[in-house]
């Protein structure tokens, strides 16, 4: 137990990096996902095709391949990029593909008549989405979005492989010094679980709040 206490600051710093990466990836992924989902539903066909190819490609590639491709590939193109930014970009692009499908599914499941009625009173496209479609779709999007968020937190541990000192890397460094593998990995597992349990719990509360039908 002493190990955990003496390494506390290092673990805490790693935990913060993990949270930082996860939040950045989710923000980036959600922005990409909203754009992607709307293009899949309402885009003119060339844009729809581009969005479809993006979503299907990204969903079929392991996250680690994406991280390595960006981290080792960008410098080769003359673009200097830090490990943490490479990780956020790679996971963000991956997350964006998943969220695109989530948005497409949620928004697409709202009955056609809602859009008709919103058009009927003269709302513009953005207003139709904002006041009529999104509030109803939110309840259907949230469960799948929470799933994606949990996956992102877990996948964030992959950035340790490009030497970002996140929770995973911090723990590994301490294990390297102290050989207390079982105890320390248990601590890591507990912390990851705690983050994800919190996300799920918030998700359940939000879902109840946005359930209309």
């Amino acid at each position, binding site marked *: 137990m002493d190990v955990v206490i003496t390494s506390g600051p290092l673990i805490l710093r790693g935990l913060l990096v993990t949270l930082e990466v996860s939040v950045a990836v989710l923000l980036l992924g959600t922005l990409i996902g909203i754009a992607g989902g709307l293009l899949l539903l309402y885009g003119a066909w060339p844009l729809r095709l581009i969005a479809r190819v993006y979503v299907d490609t990204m969903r079929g590639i392991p996250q680690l391949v994406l991280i390595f491709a960006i981290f080792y590939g960008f410098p080769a193109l003359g673009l200097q990029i830090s490990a943490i930014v490479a990780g956020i970009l790679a996971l963000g692009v991956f997350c964006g593909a998943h969220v695109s499908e989530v948005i497409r599914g949620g928004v697409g499941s709202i*009955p056609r008549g809602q859009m008709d*009625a919103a*058009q*009927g*009173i*003269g*709302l513009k*496209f953005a207003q139709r989405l904002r*006041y*009529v479609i999104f509030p109803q779709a939110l309840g259907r999007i949230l469960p799948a979005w929470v799933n994606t968020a949990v996956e992102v937190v877990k996948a964030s541990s992959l950035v340790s492989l490009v030497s970002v000192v996140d929770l995973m890397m911090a723990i590994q460094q301490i294990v390297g010094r102290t050989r207390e593998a079982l105890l320390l990995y248990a601590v890591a597992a507990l912390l990851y679980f705690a983050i994800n349990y919190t996300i799920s719990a918030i998700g359940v509360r939000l879902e109840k709040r946005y359930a209309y039908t």
Partner: protein
Amino acid sequence: MTGKVVVIQGLVKRFGMLEILSGVDLEVAKGEVVVIVGPSGSGKTTLLRCINFIEEYQGGRIHLDGELVGYRESAGGLVRLPDSIVAGMRADVGMVFQSFNLFPHMTALQNVMLGLTRVRKLTPYEAEERATSWLERVGLKDKLRAYPAQLSGGQQQRVAIARAVAMEPKVMLFDETTSALDPELVGEVLGVMEDLAHSGMTMLVVTHEMRFAREVGHRIVFMDKGVIVEQGAPKQIFEQPRSERLKAFLGHFTKTT
């Protein structure tokens, strides 16, 4: 075109290879109540949906108060207008749907207020006042704060009518507004529509309620297979139908009712 609120000329609508409307000409004067009847699949609903441009059309012209709906003329033909301009035109056309289509996440009052605040740009206070007075007029004074799920079909449809008419449109379109209702709820909705007709609202009504058509309609239009087959005053249409198709259509109603 003076005095005509809606002028439709040679309207053609296709879904892919399927032609739904094959050249429809129709004019509706201010304050006129035109009732469209016809068998299902005759294009009645599609005609209404083209008038407020929920559906695009491929041929002909629709003018609303002298303005071309959904397109602008150019040398090469018709060019589709951007959504923001079309939206402004739609605000002047009230539409009531068969399936009500109330916004389920909003109260009755909020449903009526949305267009008033966001499209008509009324202040929340003005919007609430106008929405309340319309909901009272359709007999829902005590349901202002109710959500659609808490209302009967007839009540929901009356909210939908209030939502459309509160926008003070130039014309109201009613698309089989009582077809999804239990028989005992049909009367309350038709009552509201009759009240509107008597108040001088310009109305285009698609319905299977022949009693309503006969008593409230100023003119009956009979459609079949994407064209207008026959039109005239209710008395003439119901008592001296000329075409065989109209006779056959009316025959169904005398048999069943």
